[in-house]
């Protein structure tokens, strides 16, 4: 399915401006601002306690913000109670009504809206068909599997045709196999309906594979708001770099644009970021960008290394190396399985690693991200 993105420049559907929330002295949300386009699928990604769920509940009106404005579809909603906002919601616990069948759950909000009984029944049937559990329509939640329950919850959330769909860790309670399948189905469904969606998750794979754009959060702040590939390839902070994907990091001293000093070695680095000369910075590289070469060698961006362990895991293998000239701690490299033999990689073997200048990233040292 092709990615149908709304054209840029269109008015944003949901805008948060300076949203903050305090619990007593604790600041759970700190000046959160961003805009989401209509039809976009956005993930809030972050470690537990980063404020992502609180942010979702603030958008839904289930919790109130201490400061800030929220606009949805041109309407100021920050002061409205949840029941006057326009959203559907799905929880990790599904929160299905246990005393109602799947159909009754889906139709619960449709009753008393002036729709005829047959209209409601048809709508429920369509929705259950859409999420692929039409054959379980008459069952109670306790008779359904976790994945089936979550599908009912999704059907119920979209039954009222909300402008915004909120998903609070919807897949976390499911086992890995069901999770992977539901991930795909949910994304397809979202594209098909074109409904603006926000999903909270702590699972980076989920966020990267499902979202059009990802908001990485830490300590109540937005660290970065970008497409999954930008977040991975060009993380804006050391926190994002470490939270999303694997990375090797060591401390360095910034010399000038294009050069940093690691230990007593000067290495080339083609990052666009610039610092005052002699500032302490972090220099990082993804494991898959580390290039392994047979035989020990040293000079420039090439360091001699010793293989500590080789961890085989299917297509890729993860190799732990000690590279004393680069870092006190071991660094990791990822290589295709067939290269192991080609490069004669074995534990205790001496070889060299090249760290391509254009793949090295620089970050400023932050209190919480020193790794």
């Amino acid at each position: 399915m092709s990615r149908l993105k709304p054209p840029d420049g269109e008015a944003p559907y949901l805008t948060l401006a300076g949203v903050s929330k305090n619990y007593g002295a604790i600041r759970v949300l700190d000046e959160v601002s961003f805009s989401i386009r209509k039809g976009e699928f956005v993930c809030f990604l972050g470690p537990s306690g980063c404020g992502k769920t609180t942010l979702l509940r603030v958008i839904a009106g289930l919790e109130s913000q201490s400061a800030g404005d929220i606009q949805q579809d041109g309407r100021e909603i920050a002061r409205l109670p949840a029941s006057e906002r326009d959203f559907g919601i799905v929880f990790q616990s599904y929160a299905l009504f246990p005393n109602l069948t799947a159909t009754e759950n889906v139709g619960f909000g449709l009753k008393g809206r002036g729709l005829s009984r047959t209209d409601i029944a048809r709508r429920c049937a369509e929705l259950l068909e859409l999420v692929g559990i039409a054959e379980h329509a008459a069952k109670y939640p306790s008779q359904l599997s976790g994945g089936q329950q979550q599908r009912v919850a999704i059907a119920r959330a979209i039954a009222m045709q909300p402008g915004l769909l909120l998903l609070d860790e919807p897949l976390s309670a499911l086992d890995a196999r069901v999770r992977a399948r539901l991930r795909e189905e949910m994304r397809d469904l979202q594209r098909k309906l074109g409904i603006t969606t926000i999903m909270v998750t702590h699972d980076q794979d989920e966020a990267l594979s499902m979202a059009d754009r990802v908001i990485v959060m830490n300590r109540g702040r937005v660290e970065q708001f970008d497409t999954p590939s930008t977040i991975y390839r060009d993380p804006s902070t050391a926190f994002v770099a470490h939270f999303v994907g694997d990375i090797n990091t060591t401390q360095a001293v910034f010399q000038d644009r294009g050069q940093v000093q690691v230990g007593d070695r000067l290495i080339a680095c083609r990052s666009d970021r610039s610092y005052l000369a002699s500032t302490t910075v972090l220099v990082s590289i993804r494991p898959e960008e580390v290039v392994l070469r047979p035989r020990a060698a040293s000079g420039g961006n090439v360091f001699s290394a010793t293989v500590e362990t080789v961890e085989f895991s299917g297509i890729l293998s993860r190799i732990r190396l000690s590279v004393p000239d680069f870092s006190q701690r071991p660094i990791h490299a990822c290589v295709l399985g067939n290269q192991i033999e080609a490069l004669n990689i074995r534990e205790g073997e001496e070889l060299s690693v090249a760290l391509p200048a254009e793949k090295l990233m620089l970050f400023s040292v932050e209190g919480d991200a020193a790794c």
Partner: protein
Amino acid sequence: MLNSLTGHAPSHIVQKSARDERSLTLLLGAIFLFQIVTIVLPLCFLLIRSVQDNDGGFVGLANFRRFMTEAGLAQAAINSVFISSISTVITVSLGFAFAYLLTRTRTPFRSTFRALSMIPLLAPSLLPALALIYLFGQKGVLRDLMFGHSIYGPIGIVMAEVIFAFPQAVLILSTSLLMADQRLYDAALAMRAGPVRSFLAITLPSCRYGLVSATLAVFVKVFTDFGAPAVIGGSYPVLATEIFKQVIGLFDFSMGAVVGLCLLVPALLSFIIERRVLRGNVSMVSAQSVPLTIKPNRARDLAFLIFGGVVGICFVALVGITAFGSVVRYWPYNLSLTWAHYNFEAVDNTGLSVYAHSILLALLTSLFGTALVFLGAFLVETVRGAAQLRAAVHFLSMVPLAIPGLVLGLSYIFFFNNPDNPLNVVYGTMTILVLSTIVHFYTVPHLIALTALKQIDREFNAVCASLRVSRYRMLRSIVAPICLPAIVDIWGYLFVNAMTTVSAVIFLFSADTQLASITIVRWNDAGKIAPASAMSIVIFVTIAVFMLLKNLLLARSIHSTQQWRSR
């Protein structure tokens, strides 16, 4: 198809939910007001009355001084403490052994024993007292066992109170004995500790809290019980009968207020003590605990079988002897059978109407009480904001547990019989009996409702808000059906207690609202033991039938409307 599933919610769907929320807060406010009127104000009037003379003049602590110096009253206080202490020690010891039998042995017939031990709950506290009179009274079949002592007095009171308080002790103690971690016992065994040592080192400490809680509950229950001393106390004064004598016999309402405050003391103390103990209570059982497996042990199980058998037979005998006494012509001289004592019309002119009043009271109390308690608990759990109001309503829902029925009844006299109170129209009516009974038994149902509500997914509120479904519809279609078993429990609890209660209503009934339970006291006082027994058997049977019907109904409705509970 997709067209119907996309796009925006029509604006007419966005509806008046803020009004909804406000009306819920208003409802909560109304319940708060109800509690102020039915709990706080009456108690204030009681307090004020205790520092006034009987003409309403302020006399400071003179009444309290009179209480200390008047021989009968001080003696009654000492007697109450004495009776309650002895009864508590006996009840908690027997209750612990019985709870141990139920939870930690493999004695056969455990579920039968459990059912038998609950018999006293189904009858007014007067029934065991009547049974004791049949057994050990002047004409009792076992009076020789008394060795010349009279059953009318401390011995009789203690025996009746032990029976009366026994079920509660067993319930509390078996709950705390149930929580156990097999690993602790395995570890003790590995360290070669014998059964006595592991009992002292593991079992006792782990139910320390249950023991404290049972001790306090039993003490307060006995200290404030009116039924048993009224029937079997003879001339032995205790505070519970003294308050009645001061108010109804001597019209000394101020002294009644002082005695009422004395009755409150143990409840308040136990509240404080329980808080203290609870704070230090670290559970020995965690989520990873391994449930106890009880190995068979012939000697132990045989000993407990004998113990359980004796207790069970005693309880059956109590009801049996009372029932028997109510159908013999003239105990113990003419044992030919007759239904004559059940002809209540012949006993006095109130006749059968007292039974009808009791049924009416039980029905009204259980109906309105259940609705009020459940709504109150629902609002306490779900109203958004208004945190102080919610806390206040919750607190006032807990207060009735600490107010003895006699004190509540007396304070209702002071408040509702006040000519300046516009509410005094309810005085002497069925309404005030229903009100006082609901308030008297409010706390336990409130806790049952809260427990049930807390098990409901708290995200239902959010889901209903997103579906723009009103909270009233959520209460009706989701919350109430899920909580149906708890609601039925509350209903049953209120019905049974309204049927058997004596203490609060004894100050409040009028000639037109005589109750069956009170009639038993009256007839017993007049020496009409057989009709009194007949009436207690009628109440006992009524409750037993009611419980049976209730359980059948519940089983039925679970079968037809609650099939979602089963997989």
